[in-house]
């Protein structure tokens, strides 16, 4: 059988996965706090080909061949989205530019030192509580209030405070200011609200360990050491009256979409060529 037939078929599947991820990015270009993904592909493990039956039964190595490609992972790009002013007191955006000593991050938020070790830029996220009582993280700061004053995300998850309890505000949000550090204070007096509520903002050292769960939520899948509350030294700022826009670059997404489509087409063509070769082999060779 021709090996390349399956290689091209795996290319089709991979390009389709890429296309799906880009479509999802495009679908969310207006979702606040959305973080785009990039599909990373990997080749199948290499095979060593050998020519058998040489002179005196020797085996001569031909070389290595990999027989396919697969979509390995969808990498989150957690770079900061633009802030858009909404003038709504319950819209809260995070602006995060956390520094790591000795690291100069590139546009995608990573730093590779001279030994090849990679450092990722830590990111800050709001901490929220699911109905099952599990902690999740989000960058979508379009909050609202329940009838008992509990601060909720737009799909109804409770927003946590530094004490690990959901934040409750008993006065009108028109009178609440959120400080750059995330503390809720009275708009007129500048004094902390009853119970001194403060938004719980978590710093994730390696953002690749965040797994998207939908509804703007992320689950952290790493060890506890890589996740902690932000301190005053971290360069994180809370902005009230702003929303963080999606970080998807529309032009790039449109280009990626086309490239995925055309790569798919190329693979399809290769399959057709193989089909023709097989046609020749099956029907023409040996025809009398």
């Amino acid at each position: 059988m021709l090996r390349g037939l399956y290689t091209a078929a795996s290319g089709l599947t991979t390009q389709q996965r890429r296309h799906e991820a880009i479509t999802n990015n495009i679908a969310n270009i207006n979702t606040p706090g959305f973080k785009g993904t990039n599909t990373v592909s990997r080749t199948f493990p290499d095979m060593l080909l050998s020519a058998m039956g040489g002179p005196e039964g020797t085996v001569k190595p031909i070389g290595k061949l990999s027989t396919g490609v697969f979509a390995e992972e969808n990498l989150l790009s957690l770079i900061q989205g633009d802030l858009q002013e909404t003038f709504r007191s319950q819209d809260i955006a995070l602006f995060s530019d956390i520094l790591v000593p000795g690291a100069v991050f590139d546009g995608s938020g990573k730093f590779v030192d001279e030994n090849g070790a990679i450092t990722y830029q830590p990111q800050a996220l709001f901490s929220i509580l699911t109905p099952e009582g599990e902690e999740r993280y989000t960058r979508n700061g379009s909050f609202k209030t329940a009838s008992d004053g509990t601060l909720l995300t737009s799909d109804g998850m409770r927003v946590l405070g530094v004490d690990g309890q959901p934040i409750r505000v008993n006065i009108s949000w028109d009178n609440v200011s959120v400080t750059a550090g995330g503390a809720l204070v009275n708009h007129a007096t500048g004094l902390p609200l009853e119970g001194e509520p403060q938004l719980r903002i978590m710093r994730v050292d390696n953002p690749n360990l965040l797994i998207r769960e939908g509804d703007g939520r992320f689950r952290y899948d790493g060890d506890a050491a890589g996740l902690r509350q932000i301190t005053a030294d971290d360069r994180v700022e809370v902005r009230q009256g702003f929303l963080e826009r999606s970080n998807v670059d529309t032009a790039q997404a449109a280009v990626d979409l086309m490239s995925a489509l055309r790569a798919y087409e190329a693979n399809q063509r290769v399959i057709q060529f193989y089909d023709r070769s097989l046609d020749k082999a099956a029907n023409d060779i040996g025809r009398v």
Partner: protein
Amino acid sequence: MNSSMITAAVSMNALQQKLDMLADNIANSNTVGYKRKTSVFEDILTTLSPQQQDFSQPGRRTPLGLVQGWGARLSSMQLDLSQGMLQQTGSMTDVAIEGNGLFEVRTDGTLDGAPSFTRHGSFQLVSTGGGDRMLITNSGYPVVAQDGGVDGFIVVPEGYNLTIEADGTLRGIGPTGSTPIELGKLKIMQATKPELLQSISDNLYGVPENVNIADVVTDVTQLPAEELGISVRQGFVENSNVNLTDEMTDLMIVQRAYQLSARALSSSDEMMGMANNLRG
């Protein structure tokens, strides 16, 4: 199935909803007391296709599993209760509220009914028989006032003109020489949790049945109006707080997003076509 197609279709649906909302706002850019609606998108339903342990190869940066999203939806529609511009009309039954307050009306015409709230202050006086006139909204719902802490409708006796002071106090002014009569005070409610207010027809807002009214609005009629920053203006109406520039900008953003999603849809259609035509 090509899931790009589903993702694109779902998000086009959500964008269509946003477009409907923007159209509603634009249509009401001249409606007295109209408050614009805002909404946000949210990504939906992410699946994590499991991967076997063999997939954990050097250089991989994320935990095992391929994460896939399925588009966006419109998550919550909210009211933007910010102040609209006041416009002088000269009509003595036009009333506008400056600040965070709402008029209370009764849609069923009785005091026992469920209250509704509005900023639509272009009121009218209609005869109730015997020369007395009652203050109603332009949709015909009586406006509620408080007299000595008791709710009641506003009835102006024959021969008297209605005046409304900045704190909402209602007086009937009779012919020259007669003493003005006290008619109570306009009931002003303050929305403490505006996102729980429900838009109902005729520019009114109601409170959903399962929610306690006191959790959403508080009665501020008897509180000092100046401290709350609320004042009532007779002879003015409040224009819609829709800013056409903002709405048009949003419209363009939505339209472009729709176009891009449509592009993704047609390119996934092309892909399916290619798969179908593999055998030429």
